[in-house]
């Protein structure tokens, strides 16, 4: 009987084989490769030196950080306004709004890039509209710069961030607001001193998800910019695809850098978030 029980472990085998072949070992190999030279030889930090010492890769890191921080920041801001507004409206309108958000949250990648090129590309509909109307800000809009691109990032951050923040707003009780009002605080005062601090852990969590989301975005950027902007995912893919010789070491080091940035962001938001939770408990 006992032996038969262990026989059942065989049923776990296919799962483990696939998981190890396509998930665990490839990921471990990326880390190992990053410490090995592409020309052969043993352990080396050469790849990391290349990453930190080459202007192209420095730019990839700063550009990626910049666009992720900006788009996550704007995304959070709009999500905050949106989620707060959702709490105030009629439940039927709320449902319509949430359904549309859910649908649009699947609008990403190549189709999104294409829609933005139709809209804001060089001969885009809105750009033309701006020209005819004489609105310079629209007429001179350039999608193919990092600032122009940030708009597309903001677009895909909004449905995600709003959907993530809405549940948190349920925790902000009406009674608190009424109490604050009775004590003479205005709406702004309430949000600054009570609402936002209470929501802070959720806001930070959402922020780190948005950050990761933007950091890893690849299809959308690639479709719009090809390789003409230096971003981490683009450089990583560039090391493996389309080159005559695959640069395992360098690509590995870039991948590890990207994963590290993500981990640091998660740790950072966790630490700050703990502070806020402590503060709430103390009060």
């Amino acid at each position: 009987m006992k032996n038969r029980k262990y026989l059942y472990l065989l049923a776990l085998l296919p799962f483990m084989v696939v998981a190890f072949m396509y998930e665990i070992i490839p990921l471990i190999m990326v880390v190992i490769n990053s410490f090995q030279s592409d020309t052969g030889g043993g352990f080396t930090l050469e790849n990391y030196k290349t990453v930190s010492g080459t202007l192209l890769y420095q730019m990839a890191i700063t550009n990626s950080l910049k666009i992720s921080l900006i788009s996550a920041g704007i995304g959070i801001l709009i999500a905050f306004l949106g989620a707060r507004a959702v709490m105030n409206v009629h439940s039927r309108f709320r449902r319509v709004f949430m359904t549309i958000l859910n649908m649009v949250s699947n609008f990403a990648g190549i189709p999104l890039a294409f829609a933005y090129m139709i809209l804001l590309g060089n001969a885009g509909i809105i750009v033309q509209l701006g020209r005819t109307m004489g609105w310079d800000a629209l007429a001179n809009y350039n999608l193919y710069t990092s600032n122009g691109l940030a708009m597309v990032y903001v677009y895909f951050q909004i449905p995600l961030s709003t959907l993530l923040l809405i549940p948190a707003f349920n925790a902000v009780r009406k009674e608190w607001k009424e109490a604050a009002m009775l004590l003479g605080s205005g709406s702004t005062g309430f949000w600054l001193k009570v609402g936002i601090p209470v929501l802070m852990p959720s806001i930070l969590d959402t922020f780190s998800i948005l950050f990761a989301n933007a950091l890893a975005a690849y299809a959308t950027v690639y479709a719009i910019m090809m390789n003409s902007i230096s971003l981490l995912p683009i450089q990583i893919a560039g090391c493996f695809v389309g080159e005559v010789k695959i640069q395992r070491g360098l690509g590995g080091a870039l991948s590890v850098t990207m994963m590290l940035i993500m981990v640091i962001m998660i740790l950072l938001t966790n630490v700050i978030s703990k502070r806020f939770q402590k503060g709430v408990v103390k009060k």
Partner: protein
Amino acid sequence: MKKHQTGSVIILLLILVWLLIPLAVTIIYSLFQNWTGIIPRGFSLKAYVEIFSDPAFLTALGRTVLICIIPILITILLVLLALFVTELFFPGLERIVQIICMIPYTIQGVILSVSILSMYVANKTFLGNRLVMLIGAYCIIILPYIYQGIRNGMRAVNMPVLIEAAEMLGSSRIYAYFRIIVPNIISSVIVSSLLAVGIIFGDYVLVRNLDGSAFQNIQIYLYQAMKSDSMKSSAVFVVIMAVTFAISAVVLKTDAADVNPDKRRTAEYRNMR
């Protein structure tokens, strides 16, 4: 309070307009032959007729459907077998299975694809076949959704009690699991499969990195059409978005009572970039 509501409605409407403009403009674009001024002119369904009579488009569509089905079937089978072992015989291993299933949430399409590529590209056996690599990668990317779907389903039907009852009535555990539990959780399996279809359908990163343009799925088709003919590609766009929205509508409808739909959707979202 009334004034408050008006303000909120305006904010939400602004967000909706912002989100829907790119969709609406591209749909209109696909229906008119000439849109250089402010008002589009020359209504025509020409672009749709053109793509649906283009064999390359139809093959791309067929390929996409095929590449959706295979990894999903494989992953469902793997997860069902794995959970069969951990739920009934080795609960201690459950944690390991869970961690393995959740890792793909956090690793990104780019990193997963290049790591698989660099490992198998020089392999001379069938493992070096690009399509095999792609199927392997898809199995991993959809793992979290399939796992959570099946797991939630099992919780909802109260599996231990059902198995116990079946055993008391004289059936074996294997029989009870595959003939009683699995049919009972089939609806959650379907919902998670649909989520997985959505992911693979929207994928460009994995297919591009692992197969170049050799395996022309619908996203690659759109990407290539985009450079030459924007009316045709906006029709392709409309077809892709219609399928995507149809899938998510079905998921939303059947998934309304799900325990933690937000979390699932978050990750889905992330992998699609």
